[in-house]
């Protein structure tokens, strides 16, 4: 999946979630257990008996729940392919199958009553919960429908500091007479940057593309700031075919320049480190942290913006942390995203 989570808008019936996504797992686990608690509360008049009731229920619920999740995980490709009503029916099939299997298994262990009524009741519960969760995921996806998600994404990415644009134009004007070639180069970089800013940024892009864009941006800043801006790249250990959301580096670097380099009376270094740990891609951007510039409103806005975009692209599978290290006088932003690469899209 290389674009924002979305199903084909043409398909009718409920939209199925991606059962391989950790966020979806978490929501299912929480949802089922919550409903289990509600059931336990509803069935009991005496509060003292509640813990035991919950334990008994858990004994019945958790096994088919985990089994269903594993089955759905393996069947995810097929489910996404079927989508709509057939997919939903398959999901029901899976949950009912695991529920009845688990019930029979429990019957042999004598933890549940050995009768037809019990099984029927368990199956009703399973169908009810499955239906409720499918409805929840369907509504959630409709809320995050492609059109809406796209609009949000556009609104989130169409932000570059006017300060940067006007200062860059001013810098180009400043060198146009003495270094016409440098001015040409800068205008080309500026137009490349704005082309990317203005396109529809809803597909993951190869790392190499993001890095090239970041280099162009930094080259423009170098024109203004000269020797004051030093950049260290550490990207050797990272697979170049890895995919990442578009326009993620540039705003972070813009922050680093605005808050870390510009207020500094001496040259400062921005470090960009990419690393690859198993299924995870880590991006780390650090800059000097001049005293008094620690928490800034503009900076927080940019980070919140990136957090929201990470959410749209990866749900709960991405992280963003920012740390101001007083001792070393550096400010660091760390992003971890699932490692995906271009070949399988």
């Amino acid at each position, binding site marked *: 999946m290389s674009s924002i989570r979305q199903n084909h808008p043409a398909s009718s019936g409920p939209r199925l979630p991606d059962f391989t996504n950790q966020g979806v797992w978490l929501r299912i686990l929480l949802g089922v257990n919550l409903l289990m608690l509600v059931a336990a509360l509803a069935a009991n008049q005496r509060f003292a008996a509640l813990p035991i009731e919950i334990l008994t229920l858990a004994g019945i619920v958790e096994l088919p729940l985990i089994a269903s999740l594993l089955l759905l995980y393996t069947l995810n490709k097929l489910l996404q392919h079927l989508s709509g009503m057939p997919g939903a029916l398959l999901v029901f099939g899976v949950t009912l199958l695991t529920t009845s299997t688990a019930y029979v298994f429990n019957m042999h262990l004598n933890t549940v009553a050995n009768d037809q009524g019990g099984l029927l009741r368990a199956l009703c519960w399973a169908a009810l919960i499955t239906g409720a969760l499918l409805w929840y995921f369907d509504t959630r996806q409709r809320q995050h429908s492609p059109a809406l998600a796209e609009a949000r994404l556009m609104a989130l990415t169409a932000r570059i*500091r*006017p*300060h940067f*644009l*006007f*200062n860059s*134009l*001013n*810098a*180009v*004007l*400043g*060198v146009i*007479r*003495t270094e016409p070639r440098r001015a040409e180069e800068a205008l080309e970089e500026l137009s490349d940057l704005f082309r990317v800013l203005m396109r529809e940024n809803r597909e993951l892009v190869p790392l190499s593309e993001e890095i090239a864009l970041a280099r162009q941006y930094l080259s423009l800043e170098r*024109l*203004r*700031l*000269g020797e004051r801006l030093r950049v260290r790249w550490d990207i050797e250990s990272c697979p170049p075919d890895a995919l990442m959301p578009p326009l993620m580096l540039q705003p972070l670097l813009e922050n680093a320049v605005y808050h870390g380099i*510009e*207020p*500094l*009376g001496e040259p400062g270094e921005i470090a960009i480190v990419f690393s690859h740990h198993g299924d995870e891609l880590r991006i780390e951007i650090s800059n000097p942290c001049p005293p008094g510039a620690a928490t800034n409103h503009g900076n927080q806005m940019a980070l919140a913006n990136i957090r929201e975009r990470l959410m749209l692209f990866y749900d709960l599978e991405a992280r963003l942390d920012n740390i101001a290290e007083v001792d070393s006088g550096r400010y660091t932003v760390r992003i971890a995203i699932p490692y995906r690469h271009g070949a399988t899209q």
Partner: protein
Amino acid sequence: MTGTINPPLRLLIVDDEAPARARLRDLLGDINGELPNIVVGEATDGVEALEFLSRTPATAVDIALVDIRMPRLDGIGLAQQLAVRREAPAVIFTTAYDEYAVRAFDLNAIDYLLKPVRASRLLTALNRLPRGTDAAALRHLAPEGRTHLHSNERGRIHLVPLTDILFLRAELKYVTAQTREREYLIEESLSHLEEEFGERFIRIHRNCLAARNAITGVERAASESGDSPDGGEARWMVLLRDFAGKLPVSRRQWSQVKALLREE
């Protein structure tokens, strides 16, 4: 070209970005025919600008073109330091984009130019013969006022944070500011400093302002101690944190010092 024989306008360009300075120089060259001008100096931030001005006669610069966002001492801070001088160049701010500042400039009739600057706008602004930006207008831009005093030591400008100053004392021609580490010469009058920073400092003597929050207590002076310039007038001495010496309190200020101590 008109027939006037005015001397050329003398300008100082203050901007931390080299291309921005080059741009202003180019434009000033372009309008030289209509408005004779000469760039007498360039500085990369507020501190350098103050250093430049300290090296030249007070009236050697007519107008300073000052960028807002600069390291060390920014444009507003520089204007604040200039506003307390008797002879200082007029300031025209240049800024790339800052909605808030621009609104404040308009409200307080402060001269500014938006970057990228156009030759025609520059000409209009210079022809208007900008007045010196006064402290009252700057107070609207930066309500907290000056956060530093500056001290000139053989052409090097030191910014002294107000929060570091334990006391200010008038000595002959100058005022010295004492911090925990050392003292600095300040070229401002004690009465102006008292007027501007009355909330932070209390007058304890005709020649001394002490930081209210640095005063830890008082003690009775040793009888007939010779270190009072008022000829034995002082009877109480103020004790300060992080400072070994004691400062005499004059009889006239004693009631106020006592009131301050009672507040605590």
